[in-house]
């Protein structure tokens, strides 16, 4: 560790991993409730489980991004962080707000929560992924603004690199597009249309900039490839992201009340969306092949390559499967969307957080050459368990989606939603099984932190 202020990244990383365990745990509870509707009912109804599951994901990724940024920015700018104290302060604000929100979801009926948290003054709640009470949303704004300020001030006084510029652009985009979370039009269609400005433009535009910058940083560190070369790749990847991802928002506007031209624009633009992820694979593997140094932290490079591959599969391939308008007519609102969502978030975002943690955490713990070979071996098993688990549950959800479409939407002998879901319950059991594998993988990953170091 070259700069002492990088140390502030550590609590962010640890908390992100704790939240990830919570996220997967709630995912497992949902997987059981999918099969046995009485499970945990009425103690925790499905909508609460889901809210906790998805909100934990969002918050853990923000923690992961923040930790990664605080680790990377001093090294990139070649100067200490502008204010490590502020970074620690925002950590506690965000952690407290996050925990309070989850407890609120679990212990207060949602309708009551809306009343308690001033939702009648400025209604923002009850929309998918943006269920957070108003004080939480304001807390997120406060934390993100202070975070960006901290990063910006550090960059201003230090060295500016392509990585810092791209990262900052992504962070600004993240902040700006979150503002749509505060505007809820009375018209449901207008509401849905603008809601995507936060949801899509986060995950398929601004977050991809952050992802690209983080991946580039780790690749520079573990391969020793010339920065000029890495920068070119980074620009190419994010160029394709911007060109495809922004107009690709149109794939959400096919069948929700927006005009017909989105059928064409959304289909064409999002057909290109796999390209930046494909470039990421080329990027990671080319840099690994051309590497100038043999870093002892081999598992970090494995995670980096894995991110590119799984991101391509989840976001690229599984996105493309249902992104063309004539196909989406039948897949819209089925388990295929859930399949894509799971593998894309895991492959692109959870894995980049793992990548950065795998690279940075040993250094923060005083092991500049990475963890011991034994610990890396354990981590590698965790890597495969989680990847296979996620792929398996994605395949199961895809199969569920296809059956659902055949049951409800194709042919003349249609059956209703509930009946169709019952016919899928075997597949849902398989999904739960793969979910258990993912959780076991995460526990194995945790265990790798405690493997004894070589003497």
């Amino acid at each position: 560790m070259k700069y002492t202020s990088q140390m502030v990244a550590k609590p962010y990383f640890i908390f992100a991993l704790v939240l990830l365990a919570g996220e997967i745990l709630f995912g497992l509870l949902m997987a059981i409730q999918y099969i046995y509707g009485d499970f945990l009912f009425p103690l925790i109804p499905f909508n609460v489980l889901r809210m906790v599951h998805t909100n934990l994901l969002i918050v853990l990724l923000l923690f992961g991004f923040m930790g990664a940024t605080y680790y990377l920015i001093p090294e990139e700018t070649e100067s200490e962080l502008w204010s490590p104290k502020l970074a620690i302060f925002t950590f506690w604000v965000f952690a407290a707000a996050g925990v309070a929100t989850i407890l609120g979801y679990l212990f207060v009926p949602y309708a009551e929560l809306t009343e308690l948290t001033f939702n009648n003054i400025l209604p923002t709640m009850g929309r998918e992924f943006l269920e957070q009470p108003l004080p939480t949303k304001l807390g997120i704004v406060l934390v993100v603004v202070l975070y960006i300020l901290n990063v910006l001030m550090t960059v201003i006084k230090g060295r500016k690199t392509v990585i810092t510029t791209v990262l900052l652009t992504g962070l600004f985009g993240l902040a700006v597009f979150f503002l749509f979370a505060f505007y809820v039009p009375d018209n449901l269609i207008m509401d849905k249309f603008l809601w995507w400005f936060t949801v899509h433009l986060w995950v398929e535009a601004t977050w991809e900039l952050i992802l690209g910058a983080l991946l580039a940083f780790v690749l520079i560190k573990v391969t020793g490839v010339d920065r000029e070369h890495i920068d070119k790749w980074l620009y190419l990847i994010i160029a394709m992201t911007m060109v495809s991802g922004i107009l690709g928002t149109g794939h959400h506007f096919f069948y929700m009340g927006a005009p017909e031209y989105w059928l064409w624009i959304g289909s064409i633009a999002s057909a290109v969306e796999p390209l930046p992820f494909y470039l990421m694979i080329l990027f990671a593997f080319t840099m690994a092949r051309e590497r100038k140094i043999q870093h002892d932290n081999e598992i970090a490079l494995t995670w980096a390559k894995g991110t590119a591959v799984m991101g391509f599969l989840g976001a690229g391939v599984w996105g493309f499967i249902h992104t063309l308008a004539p196909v989406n007519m039948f897949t819209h609102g089925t388990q295929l969307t859930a399949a894509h969502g799971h593998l894309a978030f895991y492959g692109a975002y959870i894995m980049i957080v793992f990548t950065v943690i795998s690279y940075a955490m040993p250094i923060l713990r005083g092991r500049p050459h990475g963890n011991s070979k034994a610990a890396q071996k354990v981590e590698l098993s965790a890597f495969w368990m989680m990847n296979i688990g996620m792929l398996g549950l994605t395949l199961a959800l895809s199969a569920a989606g296809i059956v659902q479409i055949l049951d409800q939407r194709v042919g003349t002998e249609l059956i209703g939603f509930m009946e169709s879901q019952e016919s899928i319950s075997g597949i849902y059991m398989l999904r739960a099984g793969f979910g258990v594998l993912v959780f076991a993988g995460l526990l194995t990953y945790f265990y790798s932190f405690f493997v004894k170091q070589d003497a």
Partner: protein
Amino acid sequence: MTERITKSMAKNIYYGGGAFALLIFFALTFDTVNQIPHRSNQQDMTASVVAGKKIWEDNNCVGCHTIIGEGAYYAPELMNVFQRRGGSDEVAFKDYMQGWMAAQPLDTPHRRKMPQFNLTQEQVDFLSDFLIWTSKVNANEWPPTIEG
């Protein structure tokens, strides 16, 4: 392929392409925002429909159901529940909704459960009006069948 592209070329594609895409996106957004009132029959969006939407949100209905294909996938699509359960008859649908909401949670073992939300009769009517309004939105022929 990548050997022939220089860093500055890649940088220009990023800024140029990104700005171009954003520009088109904003132009189309402007047009869409103008078209939505017509496509969604905003003139029929009564106070009751708006109140229904608020109840929909306050009870996090989207945490289980989909509406126009978006939401969770645990419970049925509700854009066309008016046609499916009400036969497109407003009186019949509102009656059905009163009965349905009062009967929750259903006592069928292992069946997925819908919580009891303790809504007043008036609130259930608001919700029905909201769903009736939603069913008439022009969503480019979606959903493909009555089963949603």
